[in-house]
């Protein structure tokens, strides 16, 4: 048995002549939060889709709990316990919290052929699960459209965990949120990891990533700039490693120049 829950070794992905990913390696243990940082165009989306089974890597291998695996479809990745929560969250705002929670995986009751959607049980589980993360869905039959952005994010994560995720891949879970909402979501992510899940947190926001991450992988132009333990790298170093970091420094210098001349 491997000490890692999931390993991505030297993953490469090409689209025609374009090298979208080159030799990206990531390893996660149970309970670990790895933050995947990168500016726009760094290859984050391609990497997520490769993790989720949408794209097949052209080179490299994926090892889940010591077994080499190829994901032929998103469903296979999901069956292996790798759940991806995309930015759009896969929630339908006109549908109720319960109907969203169990969308595609409805609990059933009744005799064969006359099986019906057990909405009472579903309501109860959805309310319980949301209650556990401190979100009080006052009425699980209310539409998801009435929830705040942070609550929706937590609903999507909670749903993934309920359905047996071992590895959570979160795509920019805090990017559309305010400070308070973002901290609620981040707290929940830490809690999920403490229960033994491995979390891959994809973000371009170092300030959100640094407090919760155990390790950090920086992507730039399709290549990994390396993985660092938290103790080995500072927030400032991380920031400057992302393409935007240097530019922000430059901007700062320029602004100082301008101030001096004024």
């Amino acid at each position, binding site marked *: 048995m491997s000490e890692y829950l999931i390993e991505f070794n030297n993953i490469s992905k090409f689209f025609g002549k374009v090298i979208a990913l080159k030799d990206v390696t990531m390893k996660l243990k149970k309970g670990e939060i790895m933050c995947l940082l990168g500016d726009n165009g760094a290859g984050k989306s391609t990497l997520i889709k490769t993790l989720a089974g949408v794209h097949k890597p052209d080179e490299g291998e994926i090892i889940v709990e010591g077994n080499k695996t190829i994901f032929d479809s*998103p*469903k296979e990745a*999901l069956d292996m316990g790798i759940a*991806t929560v*995309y930015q*759009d*969250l*896969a*929630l*339908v*705002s*006109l*549908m109720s919290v319960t*109907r969203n929670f*169990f*969308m*595609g*995986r*409805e609990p*059933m009751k009744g005799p064969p052929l006359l*099986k*019906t*959607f057990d*909405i009472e049980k579903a*309501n*109860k589980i959805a*309310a*319980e699960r949301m*209650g556990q993360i401190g979100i*009080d869905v*006052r*009425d*699980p039959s*209310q*539409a998801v*459209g*009435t*929830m*705040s952005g942070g609550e929706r994010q937590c609903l999507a994560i909670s*749903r993934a965990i309920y359905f047996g995720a071992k590895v959570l891949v979160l795509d920019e879970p805090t990017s559309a949120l305010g400070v308070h909402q973002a901290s609620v979501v981040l707290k929940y992510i830490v809690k999920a990891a403490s229960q033994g899940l491995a979390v891959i947190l994809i973000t371009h926001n170092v300030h959100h990533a640094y407090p919760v991450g155990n390790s950090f992988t920086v992507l730039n132009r399709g290549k990994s700039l390396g993985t660092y333990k938290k103790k080995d790298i500072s927030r400032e170093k991380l920031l400057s490693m992302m393409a935007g970091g240097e530019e922000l420094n430059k901007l700062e210098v320029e602004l100082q120049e301008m101030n001096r001349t004024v």
Partner: protein
Amino acid sequence: MSDKSKSIENKTDFNQDERLKKVSKLRLLLNRPELGALGGAILVFIFFGIVAGDTGMFSAYGVLNFLDVSANLGIIAIAAAMLMIGGEFDLSIGSMIGFAGICIAIPAIYWGWPLWMSIIFAFSMAVIIGYFNGILVVKTGLPSFIVTLAMLFILRGATLAITRLITGRTQVPGLRVLIENDPLAWIFATDTFKWVFTWLGSMNLITLRTDGTPLATGIPPSVIWFIFLAIISTWILMKTRYGNWIFASGGDKNGANNVGVPVGRVKISLFIGTAVAATIFATIQVLDAGSADTMRGTLKELEAIAAAVVGGCLLTGGYGSAIGAAFGALIFGTVSMGIFYTDVDTDWFKVFLGAMMLIAVIFNNYIRRKVTESK
């Protein structure tokens, strides 16, 4: 006093959260998509009750008459509503009605098939055409509006061309004699609960013909089909996994796909549903009239969509109800027949239909905003 002790008892119950404002039954009802249509139907009945209460409109014969018209529209409106909730349109319903009609009539009259075989043939064609519509929309990703608009022309044209080619005319009469003793046709051609009407007639409670038989002979098959489809569709939407998938497919196609809902299959099955509903409509009408007409069902697709919209379906999908569409059809059927009992010229019916739909769309839009943006 007793209320107070009750609320303490239930404190641990999730559904009885103390922060959940006590919602009255009325407000819960307001969140249902069919509310507008239900209210509209009640208003329509009150209106005709006042204007035409003492005419024959609310006699047994009159009631069955407008119920029959409503039911026919309702059969296709319910299927159209299911498809709309699933996020698609079918503009080929009307043409499918004409096509299904000749699929029954030509084999039965010209090829000597037994009637039941022609009916099965028509339904098989409906499944194929519905499947074709569905697979085309799902595979190409084109708007169903365009794909089914093309099918509207193709089917209507083919109906005309094939009928004229085989029969030399555009109508196929002579079916009535075949209905008797057919093992299948009775499902679409029998008036039910005849004994109730005979009894009512014998008690002199309803109008009789000069020969002593009641004027209204029984519940027409369309009404039975209508009620059956309304119940089944509502049950599917509210109580089954497939129902949840319909809402999900219409609400957010990609999201539903990402969590494992077979969106393509759901949509294809709903297209088959509208084509089959059109064929039920056609079979009932063809057997009732005893003939098939190539132009039958013209513009019915738009009436079906209008009834679905009045019934609370959003044009963008993901929201609506089957029972709402049934009420929508009831409104249209009642007004289209009721108008004969008033002094109003029947030309005004279409004006009413349009105005009703406009009001419904504005109302639905408002409801959707309330449902999704209450925070």
